[in-house]
């Protein structure tokens, strides 16, 4: 299964897990599976229409990708706050 690396505050919403595994063949499917496993994450990474939020970046094995990108077993996804966010 792909692994998903989370940092605070997302890590706290995933019951403190820095790294979780989830099934899925695309970035979106994997992130949806993470939401199902940790419902407190719903609305944080993906908005209510299922789009990755504007100021959240997803990296696949070190390369920034869009949510439709294919994911293979053994891949690592990093979910990180963008430098364009904040206030």
């Amino acid at each position: 299964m792909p692994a998903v690396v989370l940092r605070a505050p997302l890590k706290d919403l995933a019951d403190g897990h820095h790294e979780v595994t989830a099934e899925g063949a695309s970035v979106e499917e994997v992130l949806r599976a993470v939401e199902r496993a940790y419902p407190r994450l719903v609305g944080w990474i993906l908005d209510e229409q299922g789009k990755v939020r504007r100021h959240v970046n997803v990296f696949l094995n070190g390369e920034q990708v869009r949510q439709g990108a294919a994911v293979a077993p053994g891949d690592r996804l990093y979910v990180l706050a963008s430098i364009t966010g904040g206030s």
Partner: protein
Amino acid sequence: MGTKKGLFVLQGEGDGPYEVAARAFAGDVVEFAAKDRRTGRYLASVTSGFYGPRLLWTDDPGGEWQVAAGPSFPSHTGAAVERIWMIRAGEADGLLYAGVDPAALFMSTDGGESWTLNEALWNERIAGDWRPGLGGLALHSICPWPGDPRRLAIGVSAAGVWLTDDGGETWRTGYPGLVPLYMPEEVREHTNVLCVHNMHRAPLLPERLFMQFHGSVYRSDDAGASWTDIAEGLPSGFGFPLVVDPADPGCAYVIPLTGAEDRVTPDGKARVYETRDAGASWTARAEGLPEKDAWLTVLRQAFTGGDDGEGDGLSLWFGATSGEVFGSVDAGRSWFVAARHLAPVTSVRVA
């Protein structure tokens, strides 16, 4: 106090001193926070610069907050909530309203734990191709009718006043009299780009509403159907917040800013203006407020009247983007500083 850097709970009595009793949501923008006096429940609108907006509730603002189910748009709209501008108690047990960007009204019947989109108003928004103001497409003013949950007036930047008499099943506009000076003269009469900044109802005379508009101040005596300009006597018609005295239907307070191009208190003087004759005349209320080099910006939700007094004993509170909070416990005749050095203040409410 909602601020750009979290929620601050100020505690104190009378004219002070006040101290910061609690801070929550560090680092996030707290757009709005208020207490539902019917239940004692606190509600807050919080926006993370990264992870989006959410509405939370608690019975102890210094303790743990629960995330509400919504407000969020159903999939058929294709929309996503950008910001929750305001939360307001309705006229039935458990009934609450939330106004959001993109402009939509959400309703809760369980005290704010779950939320449902008002589809009829959303359909008006799509049909009317509503346009945003500088702060977004914001439904920020919600005015229930005391004792009647079917009647509601709302204000939208920039889509004017919308009215319902059937609990939100159908809506109509309240545009006549509003003059959008920022539009070409030829289209002013027919445009729906009407930038309401804030609107409140006089509880003892519900047909009367006061409005701070983008460039003037208005009054309605027919429940929002039409509007009369009452800005004469003010140093500027521009500003954002507005407060009414619940005991006096002739009373409103505004905090004028120089203008759309210079959104600070005029001449470096912080002044609140009061009318007690429904806008026929205005009186500056500035004793105790900074009179020199005070270039304050006071945002839309950052001015409020307390629920603990009225008439001569009305308490008034406003916060500035400079991080100062000012209070009055004598209806604006004198003012004191309740807090300094907070983050830019986005909203103020008395709990």
